[in-house]
């Protein structure tokens, strides 16, 4: 016997894809198309001077753009001055360095902040609003703000009684970028951790205390294991975010410091290369994409986090 709800069910099963497809089509256009276009362009030559002749580029050039970045080879010879190939590996290292240091600091400070915010005291709501302030300030403004504070006569040198040219030195400019990034994004990590921490029943801590555990022991044995899932998700999100970092080093230090590119990340290098040729820039952005994708895959495997699974539990 055909129930009237059968036709409704049938309609609903067709409605789903209909509602989802505009989003998928748009994402294919603004993400899928560029990725494929970059891949195609990365195999085409850029305009250049060859044997004294100017070539307009555009012809198929195999993997030469990739060789330019990976082994600094320009048509079998070493690259002429002014090409950016020799900055590739330092940019990779700088980007990875920023990632490891900022994410470690964010997790440590974020945990401390979450522990404090999880205490029951008057003004908790206000404190949560306060930590959202760095999150709400646009990154470009954050960069200018720290640029001002790190100025030679700025408040940081005054407070330290130091005379450091923060944005000039190789390490001082890196430290400046790291401090600004940690300031801006730690609140996000802290709030993610707090969401899980506030769900831990107080009875657990009470029981641990009666059994003679110190506050630090309870933190290690109760808090840390129970916020581990949130911690791993936060680490994955933050790692992927720092790997593509651009705004802060681009505005705060212009990618410079030390020999002139101590804070040049992969994103900054790509933007510079766009002025020099699309082929090289496409190869570089493809390499960056592969690096980030690889790290994402490795992290998700290593942590065994299933980002989608938890989503589906709440769904009918």
């Amino acid at each position: 016997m055909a129930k009237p709800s059968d036709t409704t069910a049938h309609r609903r099963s067709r409605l789903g894809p209909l509602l989802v497809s505009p989003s998928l089509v748009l994402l294919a256009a603004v993400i899928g198309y560029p990725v494929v276009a970059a891949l195609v362009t990365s195999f085409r030559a850029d305009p250049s001077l060859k044997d004294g002749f100017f070539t307009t580029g555009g012809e198929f050039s195999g993997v030469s753009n990739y060789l330019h970045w990976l082994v600094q080879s320009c048509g079998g010879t070493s690259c002429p001055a002014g090409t950016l190939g020799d900055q590739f590996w330092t940019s990779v290292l700088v980007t990875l360095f920023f990632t490891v240091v900022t994410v470690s600091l964010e997790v440590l400070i974020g945990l401390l902040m979450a522990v404090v915010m999880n205490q029951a005291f008057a003004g908790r709501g206000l404190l949560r609003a306060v930590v959202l302030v760095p999150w709400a300030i646009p990154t470009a403004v954050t960069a200018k703000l720290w640029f001002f504070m790190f100025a030679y006569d700025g408040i940081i040198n005054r407070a330290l009684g130091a005379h450091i040219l923060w944005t000039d030195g190789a390490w001082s400019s890196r430290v400046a970028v790291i401090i600004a990034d940690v300031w801006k994004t730690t609140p996000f990590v802290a709030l993610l951790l707090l969401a899980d921490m506030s769900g831990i029943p107080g009875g657990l801590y009470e029981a641990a205390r009666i059994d003679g555990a110190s506050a630090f022991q309870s933190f290690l044995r109760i808090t840390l294991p129970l916020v581990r899932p949130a911690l791993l998700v936060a680490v994955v999100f933050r790692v992927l975010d720092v790997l593509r970092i651009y705004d802060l080093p681009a505005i705060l230090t212009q990618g410079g410091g030390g020999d002139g590119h101590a804070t040049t990340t992969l994103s900054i290098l790509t933007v510079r290369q766009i002025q020099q040729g699309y082929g090289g820039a496409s190869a570089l952005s493809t390499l960056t994409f592969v690096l980030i994708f690889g790290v994402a895959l490795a992290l998700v495997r290593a942590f065994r986090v299933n980002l989608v699974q938890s989503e589906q539990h709440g769904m009918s």
Partner: protein
Amino acid sequence: MTTTGSKHAWKTRRRWLRLWPYAGAAVIVLWCLGPFYWMVVTAFRDVGHTFDATPWPSHPTLDNFRAAFDTSGGDHFGRALLNSMVIACATTALALLIGGPAAYALVRLPMRAKPKVLAAILCASMFPGVAILTPMFQLFTDIKWLGTYQALIVPNISFALPLAIWILTSFFAAMPWELEKAALADGATPAQAFRKILLPLAAPGLFTTGIIVFFAAWDEYLLSSLLSNGNPDVAPVTVAIANFAGSQPHQVPYTAIMAAGAVVTLPLVAAVLVFQRRIVTGLTAGAFK
């Protein structure tokens, strides 16, 4: 058996334990608000005292705000504010209008490819903007879109839409959908049930998602710094502040930049204070649930 001595130690310990959250909170407030406070203080400080280290407001003036909006040095901060408003509003509207129905379908409607679609949207939300920059720049050069509003709005979809869908699915999943059934059983038409029951229930989630997407669009710099192509008629405020030159050559206009930063930031900070609870819910929901 406890001696009086250890009892006393226990008391001071207890008192300290009661106080430490306040000490911790004070450190957090100082760390989070200190730089922001310094920006506002500097914004109101006379340019001749730019590096005055007095911790409270001194040499107050409104000149810096005048300097921030001054266009004689080639800066167009006022126009940039308007541009950011247009770009961020358009991005948010697109993300909610297109992402809303998708999130509804992903939560409420049967679909075989649901896990795959969710995984694809999560991947898209972590996608690096720099990877789409070169092809977009090349394409927009070819079709003469560089330095137009659409060149600054369309690429924003790449992060705004996945973000909107991701947060909305978690909000929709937590909604009491039985009420829709109850309304239908009581004789309401599906349209009435949608308008009178579902929309009011979904409004807070849509609103929160809107705030977070708006903030993300307002923050965008990498794509717009190139795709605005130096056209001050469309460049957003992030680009204007990053390139702010001031009217005096060879002099970094710190106080004017801090004033511009304060103008951009104060409405956002006000929004954060008002909608704190919603934003925290949206951010954490977007990350896992």
